[in-house]
């Protein structure tokens, strides 16, 4: 059951000659975890904004094609109506602190206050989401007094508490250290396991390989690959479009040139695949 549909979407930012998305069509099913990869400027962020309605409502510009999220047509709805069904988390943790509240607890409540949720209903929702993201201990702290990873989890919690049907993340860990990244990824994975539809633009291909059900590769505003991680992440097209590969794939490719890995054998994308593959290939017990 498709919960997000893009149909022949072309979009051009104002004052920009080239379109950022060209005739892009995409379907995401409910509960899927879709990763979006691509070089810088390929259109990942624009895609995230388009699914959540910031394109066209915030950015204006020229758009053709239709986008539907949880039954709502994004071009016809207002942005705040769309925020009920789609949540957006992006790269910079401190830019996502609203500044309107003095404590983390109230910061998370901010979205609920804007949506007119009754106070009695707010507290259990906030408590639940804080437990989920592991930030219960920060409830009374100022959001400004947290580390990047902690702030990003607050941002995530603030969006999750609004109970969107689709969670869109634009490179949520690119400004975090490894520990912060892990914390954020684990939380997102937990949400996905609970049935949340997740669409995540990401550079860290190892994580993509581990978490995603499906991977979409973008180049020049269009989709060049669309399939399971093992298939997409090993495609030669990635190199052509400067997208890179997982380190496990890289090692196996090296092993291929050294005649250690058969050319016909599928390349690994995760640690487990690599381990199993090399065990077989090297004939170790």
């Amino acid at each position, binding site marked *: 059951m498709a919960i997000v549909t893009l149909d022949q979407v072309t979009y051009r930012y104002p004052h920009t000659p080239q379109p950022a998305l060209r005739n892009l069509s995409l379907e995401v099913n409910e509960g899927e975890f879709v990763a979006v990869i691509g070089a810088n400027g390929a259109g990942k962020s624009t895609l995230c904004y388009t699914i959540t309605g910031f394109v066209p409502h915030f950015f204006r510009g020229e758009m053709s094609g239709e986008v539907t999220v949880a039954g709502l047509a994004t071009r016809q709805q207002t942005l705040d109506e769309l*925020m009920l069904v789609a949540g957006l988390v992006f790269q*910079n943790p401190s830019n*996502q602190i609203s500044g309107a509240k003095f404590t983390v607890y*109230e910061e998370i409540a901010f*979205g609920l206050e804007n949506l007119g949720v009754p106070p009695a209903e707010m507290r259990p929702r906030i408590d639940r989401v804080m437990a989920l993201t592991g930030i219960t201990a920060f409830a009374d702290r100022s959001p400004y007094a947290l580390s990047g990873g902690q702030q990003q989890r607050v941002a995530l919690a*603030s969006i999750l508490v*609004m109970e969107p049907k689709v969670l869109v993340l634009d490179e949520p860990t690119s400004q975090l250290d490894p520990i912060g990244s892990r914390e954020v990824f684990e939380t997102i994975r937990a949400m996905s396991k609970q049935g949340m539809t997740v669409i995540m633009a990401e550079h860290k291909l190892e994580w993509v390989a581990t978490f995603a059900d499906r991977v979409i590769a973008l180049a020049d505003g269009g989709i060049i690959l669309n399939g399971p991680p093992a298939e997409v992440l090993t495609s030669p097209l990635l190199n052509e479009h400067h997208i890179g590969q997982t380190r496990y794939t890289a090692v196996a490719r090296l092993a291929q040139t050294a005649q250690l890995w058969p050319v016909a054998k599928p390349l690994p994308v995760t640690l487990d695949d690599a381990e199993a593959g090399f065990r077989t290939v090297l004939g170790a017990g």
Partner: protein
Amino acid sequence: MADQLSLYVDRASPLHRLNPLTKLVLSFSLVLIGFLGPGYWLPTILFVGILIPLSFWGNIGNEFLQRAVRLILPLVLFLFVMQSLFYPGGRTVLVRIWIISLKLESIQFAYLTATRILNMVGAFLLLLLSTHPSTLMTDLTRRGLPPALTYILVSTLQIIPQMRNKANTIIDAQRSRGLETQGSVWARIGALFPLVGPLVFGSLVDVEERAIAIEARAFKAKRVKTSLREVPDSTLQRQVRWGLGLLTLVLIGIGLWR
């Protein structure tokens, strides 16, 4: 470096528990009566007879007096000197030094202005020391203050310390190079640009993402916003507020009529 821009002192007191609007009405009443009400000694009476006792009732007496003195003293001294010396309505000369003469009426006028300002600053100081900004904002928003304004006020309170911290790093860097006091005017300005520039541009560029972030929290929703915290109010306080308003009008009337 303070990471919050707020005068609030957290104590348990009846003053703290009062509804913020009550305190706000009180402050405005005191200010208006002080400036427009009848009587030469009125501002003094208001400050000594109402503000100071209230501050002690609120367990913030010491802080109140300290802050009031620190805030007001320079201004008052300056005012005193200026008006005593230059207020042209004076006639009774008390002292004459060279071409400057100290006149009685000037001193009287200076005292009145000084106590009026002391009264005004004290009234708002009382409010700010005993009311947490978010409590004040929540209550005012509930009563109809546009959420946009609330957002601007609270966000300003939080962003200033952030930027000042970053700027202090810049100032320290300047100091360690001795550029603050040495170097020509142009050298000082020139060394500043590459440091202040990124700060200014960085914070401006962030505006776009931060706008997206608050829209992602449905800030522009047309619904009636609710509030997590409840700020208590009472009928008695409502009556007191109306009473204060009425009293203010009466006293201003008397003052203007005189």
